[in-house]
């Protein structure tokens, strides 16, 4: 496993370098792994990297790019749009010469067209947003402040919002609200029932389940080598 980076386009035509975790041995099969979003990224990071270790063991190179404004990125998340994440994923796919893609949960909202691969437990942007808004309403209520989802969403689309510790721009919220999982014939969904175990993104604390990493890696490896 190595620390790597990829050139990521910035508004105005310049480029930044974003970090990526890579298992790169110049092999024929090269998997771009697109992480889950927001709090789910933290809860699924361990599982995601363990799947990559197994893919590496099965002879598949794999790459996990940081999205601008997340993880090691120096970008200010509050100035980032969902469209920036899509451009970053496309840039990473090009830079690492990906032959396949594996998107985890909300990562499926960011895929470039044409790459074959898998969507693990894909979710609509509106559903992610609904949970984030609800968490904010519950936290505010505990602090004695009453807020409503509708008013928050309307305000957030215009002015941005702090949701569950993430400062999101109005554009990010607007685009997330509309975002649908990539609907491409070359993509296959892997629902949680097929993987087995319990969905780790729902848990209050990050956890890991080696059996789920085994199952996901096996499904993807068989598909790649079929």
């Amino acid at each position, binding site marked *: 496993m190595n620390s790597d980076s990829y050139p990521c386009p910035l508004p105005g035509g310049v480029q930044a370098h974003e970090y990526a975790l890579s298992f790169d041995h110049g092999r024929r099969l090269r998997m771009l792994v697109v992480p889950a979003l927001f709090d789910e990224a933290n809860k699924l990071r361990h599982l995601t990297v363990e799947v990559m270790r197994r893919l590496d063991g099965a002879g598949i190179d794999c790459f996990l790019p940081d999205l601008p404004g997340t993880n090691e990125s120096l970008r200010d998340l509050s100035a980032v749009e969902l469209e920036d994440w899509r451009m970053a994923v496309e840039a990473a796919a090009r830079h690492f010469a990906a032959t396949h893609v594996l998107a985890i949960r909300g990562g499926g909202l960011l895929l470039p067209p044409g790459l074959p691969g898998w969507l693990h437990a894909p979710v609509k942007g509106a559903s992610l947003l609904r949970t984030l808004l609800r*968490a*904010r309403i*519950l936290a505010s209520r505990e602090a004695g402040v009453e807020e409503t989802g509708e008013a928050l969403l309307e305000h957030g689309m215009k002015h941005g919002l702090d949701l569950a510790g993430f400062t999101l721009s109005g554009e990010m919220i607007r685009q997330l609200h509309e975002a649908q999982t990539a609907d491409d014939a070359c993509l296959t969904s892997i629902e949680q029932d097929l993987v087995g175990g319990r969905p780790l993104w*729902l848990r*209050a604390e990050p956890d890991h389940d080696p059996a789920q990493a085994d199952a996901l890696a096996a499904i993807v490896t068989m598909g790649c080598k079929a």
Partner: protein
Amino acid sequence: MRSDTDRKLRRILSDVLGLTDDQVEDLTPDTGLFGHLPELDSMAVAGLFTEMEDRLGIAIDDDEIDADLLETYGALLAFAEAKREAA
């Protein structure tokens, strides 16, 4: 014989709380939920209600979510069953 809602709600709770199959079976109407599990934050509670909406095919208003609803398993189940009947 458990209702469909009861079975699904047990599964959702086990997913969110990371309960074992035995712990899920042991849930009774009087089993305390969130008041007894202080490590659950607002994000986990929000996720629970979104899962309930998706898997039970119901819509939940944010102002319906209050502490009484989460006091016991029985209270949450009664809420879910009423919601499904009205749907």
